[in-house]
């Protein structure tokens, strides 16, 4: 025990995580469904003018843009995952569980079904509104009980919403072939084929979500000792829970609206992160953000390389390569309590 907890975090884990993210970014830029020589990518990145324009546009525009999108979405899903697990005190909680991504999916299906919009932006906004409405309903159900914010009630209400919304989505999809054709591509969460402005619209929401999460991190630490203890040291328990739900909604809603439902990242990241840095939320939130970024970028790159000449969706690769890792963590953990 030469290092204290804090020093181990700042000198050990944090630099390691940054290196992981950097590796993810480099992998995402250097490898893709188009086999481009690594030296050419390097020349492009260092600003060598001898590189043909076609290579430049692939590396900087296509790969660069989806790398940025991957960083933002990865951070958003990683943080919303850890927030959801602490909020519900359930090791199984996933933002999808609260009905948030189902709300987004349902709103997107409804938008396609009714107005058949051009491009990705209307769907993005629809997804965001759907996610917000779903969270609002779930949280008002859970908070209007005598047992305010009781984790079990929240989960049951969220799961109810989730299933119902999926049912409505299935109905819309089966009633109209056009909706089905469009929805089945969006349903596979991916960083590919998303519009330029998705990233711009996404950024402010994710920024707000991250700030909210960090603001209440110390309060969540106190809440982990029990709500009686938390209120006795002067923490406004309901307010903290509300802000937590708001952060989950904003982060998941925005990410889902931009990329489609990407499962597993929000469920897996916190489990791995807790293994690294313990249960202090002030460390867990940055850890989950960085871990989420790295995992999503690696998954996306692997899908592009493995699926040549096409590509596998990031959500699929994430599930297939992430599941064994996740199962390993589950098997090795002594206790699964959050």
């Amino acid at each position: 025990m030469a290092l204290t907890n804090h020093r181990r975090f700042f000198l050990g884990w944090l630099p390691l995580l940054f290196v992981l993210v950097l590796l993810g970014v480099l992998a995402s830029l250097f490898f893709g469904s188009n086999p481009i020589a690594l030296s050419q990518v390097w020349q492009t990145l260092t600003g060598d003018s001898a590189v043909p324009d076609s290579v430049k546009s692939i590396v900087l525009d296509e790969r660069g843009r989806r790398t940025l999108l991957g960083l933002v979405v990865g951070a958003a899903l990683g943080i919303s995952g850890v927030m959801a697990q602490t909020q519900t005190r359930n090791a199984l909680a996933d933002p999808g569980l609260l009905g948030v991504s189902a709300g987004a999916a349902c709103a997107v299906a409804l938008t396609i079904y009714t107005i058949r919009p051009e491009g990705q932006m209307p769907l993005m906004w629809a997804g965001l509104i759907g996610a917000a409405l779903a969270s609002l309903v779930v949280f008002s159900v859970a908070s209007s009980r005598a047992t305010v914010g009781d984790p079990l009630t929240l989960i049951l209400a969220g799961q109810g919403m989730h299933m119902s919304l999926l049912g409505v989505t299935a109905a819309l999809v089966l009633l109209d072939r056009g909706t089905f054709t469009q929805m089945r591509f969006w349903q596979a969460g991916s960083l590919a084929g998303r519009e330029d402005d998705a990233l711009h619209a996404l950024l402010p929401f994710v920024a707000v979500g991250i700030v909210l999460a960090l603001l209440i991190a110390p309060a969540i630490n106190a809440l982990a000792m029990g709500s009686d203890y938390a209120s006795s040291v002067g923490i406004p328990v309901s307010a903290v829970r509300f802000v937590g739900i708001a952060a989950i909604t904003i982060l998941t809603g925005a990410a889902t609206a931009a990329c489609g439902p990407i499962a597993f990242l929000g469920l897996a990241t916190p489990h791995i992160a807790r293994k690294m840095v313990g249960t202090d939320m002030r460390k867990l939130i940055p850890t989950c953000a960085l871990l989420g970024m790295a995992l999503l970028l690696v998954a996306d790159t692997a899908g592009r390389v493995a699926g040549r000449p096409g590509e596998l969706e990031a959500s699929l690769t994430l599930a297939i390569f992430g599941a064994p890792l996740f199962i390993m963590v589950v098997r090795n953990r002594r206790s699964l309590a959050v």
Partner: protein
Amino acid sequence: MAVTRAATKRIWIFSILGLAILVWLFILDVSTGDVNVAPANVFAALLHGPDPAGFFDPLGHLTVWEFRLPVTLAALLAGVGLALAGALMQTITRNPFASPDTLGVSQGAAAAAVLLLVGIPTWFDSSPLTDAAVPVAAFIGGLLSAVLVYVLAWRRGMEGVRLILVGIAISVVMQAITVYLLITGSVEAATRAQVWITGSVYDASWELLAIAFPLVILGAVACIFLTRHYRAIALGDDTAHSLGVPLAVVNTATVLIAVIVTAATVSVVGPLVFVGFAAPQIARLIAVRPAPPLVLSMVCGAVFVLAAAYLTRTIPQQQLPVGIATAVIGGPILVWLLFRLQPKGL
């Protein structure tokens, strides 16, 4: 003790009430469709038996026995089977989350079925071979997936939360594979696959039911021998252990029953969401007990799916899969129950 006796009485009253509703829904469901058969005639035809000779309304008899009964029985099977599996999983894990969906069975079955429906286009044509192959593939896929989950979750014994976590991981993988297959297939094949994975009773046949029903009934009967252990398990693993419950044996047997029942059900009706999760919870809330009562759960599940099947049938033109209705009705019912019947101290 007084509380327990009152709760037991409640369970009995609601079970009998539920059974009465079930019989009524059953007759109603069989009598409704493109051709309506009067409920009295349905009743008479059912009593008359499968042989039409000597029955006063041959067309009605044909409609009831050939077309309606398999579909309605499939709905009944789905309700009973999924609710039983859900109740068992929720009991041994003491987690309201546990359901057939989190065991990996439903998603594994769905992935295997979609692989056939989408991956091999020529099989898309409705032939007797396809009709048989899809449920068989689903059954095998569900079992394999469950075995995978169980093996991966076993570590010096079985722990409920670990089982669910591994189950969810495998479910997510299977789901991702299903979505990927839906993208790669033609629109027609993908639509058919989407109907299957939403859960539809219209593919049911007497042959399938003759295999699936005995499996579900066997599972339910096997549970009778385990019921007294479940009461102890509801008090916690440590308490159950000190009361002499062979935890490893009971848990393994229970998971095995739940898996087989789920696979049998899902191979006939598809992965009908929400039933395995909601029915036991509704029963638990009615009974005001920490663990869902098995019989009441099965009655709730059957009523739930039959009502859903009846509703989808009243919508003309579209043969909408019953899974849509179970999902759309189930959510609000559960939320309403959370408002109304929140038991103290649970």
